[in-house]
């Protein structure tokens, strides 16, 4: 993957009424019916499951093999995210996005919280979410 390696916030939707998060982003809160607004933030959660993709669709074939995790976020949403590899199911993770190449949509990216390679991102994420 061609990336600058900077973990940036993920733009989830948040209800302006009850504060509930939505991912994929929904324009309307399915809990209370109020509208939502974009809420860029870093997320924490647990890896619900992890797979390594060896045979990808044409768009991603050049990047294979790569790892994808389904993350249960403490914000009450589930996100599909790339990982740095070697992520274990049940691991506590931090989740943001990476910009890759010329793609307009950044890729959700999750790494284990105890992964020392991403120590810098923790402080930044905490400051951002505060």
């Amino acid at each position: 993957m061609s990336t600058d390696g900077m973990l940036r916030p993920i733009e989830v939707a948040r209800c302006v009424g009850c504060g509930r998060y939505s991912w994929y982003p929904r324009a309307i809160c399915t809990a209370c019916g109020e509208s939502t607004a974009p809420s860029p933030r870093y997320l924490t959660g647990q890896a619900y499951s992890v797979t390594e993709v060896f045979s990808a669709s044409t768009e991603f074939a050049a990047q294979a093999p790569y790892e994808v995790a389904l993350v249960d976020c403490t914000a009450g949403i589930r996100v599909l995210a790339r990982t740095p590899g070697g992520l274990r199911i049940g691991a506590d993770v931090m989740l943001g996005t990476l910009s890759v190449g010329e793609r307009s949509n950044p890729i959700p990216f999750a790494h284990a919280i105890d992964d020392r390679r991403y120590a810098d991102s923790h402080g930044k994420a905490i400051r951002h979410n505060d």
Partner: protein
Amino acid sequence: MKGLGAITGVGDAGISFRSGRPAIDLAAEAALEAVADAGLQLGDIDGLAVGKGGDLVPADRPSVELADYLGLTLTWTDTTLVGGVSPIVQIGHAAEAISAGRCRRVLVVYASAQATNRERSLGGQVRRPNHHVVSFERSSGLPFPIGPNALAAARHMWQYGSTSEQLSAVAQSDRAWAALNPAALRPTPLSTEEAASSPMICAPLRKVDCCLISDGAGAVVVEAAAAGAPRGVSIRGFAELHRQYSILSTADLLTTGACWTGPAALRQAGCTLADIGLLQVYDAFTILPIVLVENLGFAEPGCGGVLFAEGHTAPGGRLPTNTQGGGLAHCHPGFYGVFLVLEAVRQVRGETGARQVPDPRVALVQGAGGGAFGGSQATLVLAAE
């Protein structure tokens, strides 16, 4: 016991790795076979249900397209599109429409020439990038539909300690049945060594864990319960549940809608699991039947793989399952649900030759649909009239 309706005819056509024919031709051939099987003429048909079938296009009005091709005039139609389970759901809807007096004799048809047209690959189909919901799944690079199945399999292994050998056992059971079915496209036995060396596609799923990619068409005639057809099979119970479109919306991949549709359909049929002599269960990937037999109650949570690995589903086992060879070894033109029903009907009638189950009694058909690991589920309970 009076059923909700009856399946009075079945037919199939073009089951092959490359028919070289348009899907609409396969659809028509299967439809004609089913009508003849029911002892009817095409002109007797006044209802038609068709799910969008790959290249059965323009698929904006697939049932009207096929009605036009067959020269039918319809008083009822249904194009319910909920993935591979669609034909099963349409059979349930057809029985209800007949009970309501909307029509008398319904054809449910599915056809695809996806192998001829090279529309699918194990790496997953390219989903529409401008689709709002899908774009948020796709950005991760997870291939569909194998990706959600791989995530479910990895979670099942982590949560319950199930193994790759148990996944392979599902394919081995299907292959053993396929060896008894002249129509099966992959009738060769699968050794444990061959399974273990099969190429990894999306871990932990290997190529042998994936359904075939084939052409094929299937058709079913549905009539009223009291139609008096000599070879009719009674529809005793039906239930459907549609819960999520996206894998991002799943609560728990290992708890599907089958937890509800199975008991609901059995209750309607006045049956219990102990009455079931044949299980026809959707097997797009080996993990799916493992989870579904747990959700239906044939195995304790976490023990679905053991049911297959101990041989209970294979020829001679106590729960004969996917006796035509399933989507892993018979064929898989897309919406495999219709083929699950075809085999159940033929088994209940006692017409399946070398693979005939001695006492099929009551058959349970479990269909799953959609890319979100079976976000749509339906159960059909069939029995001799």
